[in-house]
C-alpha cells in the first residue's frame, strides 16, 4: 500500500467523523423541538465500500471510477433509539453524548495514526 493512500484514507475518516459531529450537534440542538427525528450518518464502512481502491490511470483512455475526494457522506434517520416523546421527538441526550465521545476517541486515534505515519515518512526522508 502506498503511503499516500493511507493519508487519503485517514483524511476520509476525519471528514466522516467531522460530519458525524455536526449531525450530533444538530440532534442535541433540537432536543426540545417537537416532531424532530434524530439523525445519524451512514457507518464509515458503507462509505468505504462505495469506493474500492482506484486503479492508476496511466493512459489518457483509462476510465476512472468515482473520485474518492468528492464522495459525500450521506445521512439516515437514527432508528436505534426506540424512545419517542409525546411531542414526537426521538432525540436521546445521553445517546448523543455517548456518540460524541465516540467520535472524539476515534478522531484521537485517527490523528495519532497520521502523526505516527508522518514521523515515519520524515525519518525516511531525513538524510
Amino acid at each position, binding site marked *: 500500500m502506498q503511503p499516500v493512500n493511507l493519508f487519503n484514507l485517514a483524511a476520509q475518516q476525519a471528514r466522516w467523523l467531522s460530519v458525524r459531529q455536526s449531525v450530533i450537534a*444538530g440532534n442535541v440542538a*433540537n432536543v*426540545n423541538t417537537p416532531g424532530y427525528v434524530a439523525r445519524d450518518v451512514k457507518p464509515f464502512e458503507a462509505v468505504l465500500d462505495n469506493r474500492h481502491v482506484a486503479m492508476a490511470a496511466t493512459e489518457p483512455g483509462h476510465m476512472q471510477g468515482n473520485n474518492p475526494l468528492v464522495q459525500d457522506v450521506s445521512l439516515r434517520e437514527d432508528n436505534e433509539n426506540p424512545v419517542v416523546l409525546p411531542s414526537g421527538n426521538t432525540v436521546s441526550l445521553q445517546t*448523543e453524548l455517548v456518540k460524541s465521545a465516540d467520535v472524539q476517541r476515534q*478522531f484521537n486515534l485517527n490523528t495519532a495514526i497520521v502523526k505516527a505515519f*508522518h514521523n515515519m515518512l520524515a525519518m525516511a526522508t531525513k538524510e
Partner: protein
Amino acid sequence: MDPLSTALKVAASGLDAQSERLRVVSENMANAQSTGRVPGSDPYRRKTITFTAAVDHASGGAMVKVSNIGRDESAFPVDFDPGNEAANADGYVKMPNVNMLVEMADMREANRSYEADLQVVKQARNLISMTIDLLRSGS
C-alpha cells in the same frame, strides 16, 4: 463548509434557543403575582415558547430556532383578596395562570439542554485542536 464549524454553528443555535427559553421562563416566574391594574381586569398571562428545526442552507446543518412565543390561554385562578386594587365587586382577584412547579421543571430542562449544547461545543473544539496539533508534531 467545514463540518466542524457547522457543528459549532448548530450548537450555538441551540444555546441561543435555550437561553431565549430561559428568558421566557424567568418572565413568567417574575410575574407570577402580577395582577391587573383596574378592578376586574386580567392579570399577567403566561407565555409559552416553541422551537422548530431549521436547515441551514449554506452548511446543511439542522439548526434550531424559536418558532413562536405564544400565550397560554388557560383560565386564571381567582383569589379572595378584597384589598387588592384589581379586586372585582365581590372581592375576588384574577391571578396569573403561572404554575411555579411547571416553570421550575421547564427551567431545569432548559438548563440541561444548554449544558448538552455546551458539551458539544467543547467536543468540536477538541476535534479542531487535535487536527491543528498534526502540524505541531513536525519537529
